C-alpha cells in the first residue's frame, strides 16, 4: 500500500522534472542575485539541508528567513509554518520577528524522539496547509530523507533539515539543496550553496540593514565552479 503511494509520489516528482512539464513556481527571495543563481527563486516541494558553519544561530536564522519568504509568498491566503525540535529545544520565538515571521503563528513541535520527529515532519510536509517545515535533527539516513523528499513533493512545501555543526553531513543525500551558513562580522551571514540538483553551487555574503532588518547581498563570492565541494559532488 505504502509502496504504491511512494511510487505514485515518485511518478509525480518525475513528471515535474520531466522537460516540457510545468514545474512548480519557485519562491522569490527578494534578493535578485540569489534568485538568479537559484533560477528564479527558492525551489518548492523539496527537501533542503541547512548546515551551520559554526556553533552559533546563523543557520537557524537563515532557515527562519527562508521560511518567512515561503509563508508570505505562498498566496493571498497565506500558509503555515512548523518548527520541530527534539524536546523543547532552544528556539526563542520572540527572536523570529526580526526575520519577518509572526512568532505566534508558527506551530512549535517538541518531538519525544528523533524517529517521532521525522514522522511528524513527514506528516507536516504532506499537508498542503504548510509552506515550510523546519526539523532540527542530528542525523538522517537515506531512507528517511527519501521519505521526506517524497512527502514534500506531495504537499508542495519545503522541508528544511537543520543539521548540527559538529557532525559532518552525509556524503549522499536526497536533499535538492544543501546550504551552509555561518556568521560574519556585523550581523552578516556567509551563505554557501554547496549543492543544487541540476544547478551550480555558489557563495554569498548577506548583510542586514540596521534599521529595517532588510537583507541584501553584499558580495558574490563566485559561482562555486572552482569550489572544491562542487568538484567533489560532481566527481
Amino acid at each position, binding site marked *: 500500500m505504502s509502496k504504491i503511494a511512494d511510487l505514485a509520489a515518485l511518478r509525480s516528482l518525475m513528471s515535474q522534472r520531466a522537460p516540457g512539464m510545468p514545474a512548480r513556481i519557485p519562491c522569490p527571495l527578494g534578493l535578485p542575485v540569489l534568485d538568479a543563481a537559484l533560477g528564479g527563486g527558492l525551489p518548492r516541494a523539496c527537501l533542503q539541508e541547512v548546515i551551520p558553519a559554526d*556553533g552559533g544561530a546563523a543557520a537557524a536564522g537563515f532557515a527562519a528567513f527562508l521560511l518567512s519568504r515561503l509563508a508570505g509568498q505562498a498566496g493571498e491566503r497565506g500558509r*503555515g509554518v512548523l518548527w520541530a525540535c527534539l524536546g523543547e529545544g532552544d528556539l526563542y520565538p*520572540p*527572536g523570529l520577528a526580526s526575520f519577518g515571521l509572526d512568532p*505566534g503563528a508558527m506551530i512549535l513541535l517538541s518531538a519525544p524522539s528523533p524517529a517521532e520527529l521525522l514522522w*511528524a515532519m513527514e506528516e507536516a510536509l504532506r499537508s498542503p496547509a504548510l509552506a515550510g517545515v523546519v526539523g532540527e535533527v542530528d542525523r538522517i539516513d537515506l531512507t528517511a530523507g527519501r521519505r521526506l523528499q517524497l512527502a514534500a513533493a506531495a504537499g508542495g512545501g519545503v522541508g528544511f533539515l537543520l543539521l548540527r555543526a559538529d557532525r559532518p553531513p552525509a556524503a549522499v543525500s536526497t536533499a535538492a539543496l544543501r546550504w551552509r551558513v555561518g556568521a560574519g562580522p556585523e550581523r552578516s551571514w556567509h551563505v554557501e550553496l554547496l549543492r543544487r540538483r541540476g544547478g551550480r553551487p555558489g557563495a554569498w555574503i548577506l548583510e542586514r540593514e540596521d534599521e529595517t532588518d532588510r537583507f541584501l547581498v553584499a558580495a558574490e563570492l563566485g559561482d562555486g565552479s572552482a569550489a572544491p565541494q562542487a568538484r567533489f559532488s560532481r566527481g
Partner: protein
Amino acid sequence: MWLPSWATDRLRRKPDFPAGKPAVTIEEIGGRLLVVAADGAASAEGILPGLSLADARALRPDVAVFPADRAGDAASLARLADWCSRYTPLVAIDGADGLWLDITGCAHLFGGERALMSDLRHRLAGFGHDARAAVADSPGAAWALARFREAEQTLLEPGTARGALAPLPAAALRLPAAMVAELERLGLRHIGDLYPLPRASLARRFGMLPGERLDQALGRIDEPISPRLPAPAYAVRQVLAEPILHLEGMAAVLHRLLPRLCRELAEGGQGARRLELLCYRVDGRLVKLAVGTSRPSRDDAALARLFAEKLARIDPGFGIEAMVLAAPHVEALADLQLALARGRDGGGLEADLAPLIDRLGNRLGFARLARAEPRESHFPERAVKRMPAVFPAAAAKPAAAWPSGNLPLRLLPRPEPVTAEGHPPADFIWRARRHRIRAAEGPARIEPEWWRGETGDPRDYWRLEDEAGMRFWLYGQSGSWYLHGLFA
C-alpha cells in the same frame, strides 16, 4: 443482577485454584479469622459468611482458604460493569456483589428482556460467575427478586411487583440488619406484612426508611441509578456474529460505524471533539481507545485517519464480540461552518491545519504542539509562553505585545556559566572554546520583578560579537557571567 459468590468465583479463575473443593475467603475481624465469602459448595455445607475459620474447618476439613481482597473484588466488579455497557450505557455498581442495568429501551436490541437476561447470565457463566438476575419495573424490586427469590432468573411483568414481592423477607427491602431484626420481633417477617400497615405508624417506629424503600420497590417513587460511566448522547454499536481477532476486522467495523455516527451527529447539528471506541472482548473485558480533535468534526474520513494510527494498540485477546463508537464530547457544528471549512477561500489557515494538528496531536500528545504567546515580563525567559496549538491563534487576543528590539534566536533553557575576563568581557570560554570579543553593546539592566516577590541581584545583559562574527547574549550577575542566548 446479583453475583452471590463474586469473590470466590474470581479465585476460581486463578490457575492454582484447587479443583473440587469448597472455597472461602477470610479476614481477621476483632482478632478472629472470619469467613467473609463462601462459594456455592461451601454454602451448601453450612459454611456461611460470619462463621469463624475454625468452625468452617470443623464442617469441611478440606475447605480451601484464601485471604479476602475487597479492593481487588471491587476493581474487578468495576471492570465487569464496564463490560456490561455492551447491553446498556446505564450501568451502576450495587455494593460489593451486584450490578444494576437500566435496560429501558435497550432490550429489543437483544431480542427482548428475557433474551437479554439469558444472554447476560450465559456469558457470565462462561466467565465462571454464578449470577442471579431479575428484571422488574424498579431497581428495588429487581434487587429483592434477584437476591431473595430462589430462582436463577426472574422476569416480572409490569405492574405485578406488589404480588411478587409480598412473600419475600423484609430484608429484601435493603434495610439495615438491626431494623430487619426489629421488624421480625414484631412479626413483620415478609414484605407483604408491611402493605396493610399505616405509613405513619411505621415511620414513627422505624423512621422514613422502610416506607421509602417500599415505595421504591413498588415503583411509586423514582429511584435513579447513578451510572458508572456517563452515557454519551451519540453512540452507535455493532454486535459481531463472529468474534474478530485481527486489525483488518476492527478497521472494517470502524469504517461501518463512523459514517453512522457522523450521520447522527449531522442530524443533531453537532461535531465530535472526542471519540471513544469501546471494544467488548469475549473474556469480559472492555478495551477503550480514544481520539481527540482540535475542532468539532463529523468528517468520517478524517476521523478514520485519527483512529488508523491507534487501532493497532487494541489487544483483541480471544476476540472482540461487540464494538461501540461513542462521542462523549460534542460541540455544535453547523452545516455552514462545515461548508466554510471545506471551501478554499473562507475557511482560513486554521481549518486547513486542523487535520494535521489532530494527526500529530493524537500520536505525540497535544501538549507537544504549541504556539508561542507573548507575556508581560522583562525577563526574556518569561516573555514567552507556550500555548496549546489547538486553539485558533487569531481568536485568542495576546495578552501582551511581542518584545521589540534585537533579540536572540536561541535562548538556552538554563543560562550557562562562562569564564570571562573584563567588564564587558574581552574574551570568554564557553563549552571549552575561547571567543575573543571584537564588539560589545550594553549593558541593559533587568531588575528582579519585586512585584512577584523576587529579590536578588539585577542582571546586566551585553551583546557580544566575537572575531568570527558569532554573536552572544551574556549577562553579569553578582560578579559571575552567564551565556543566555545566541543571535542569528
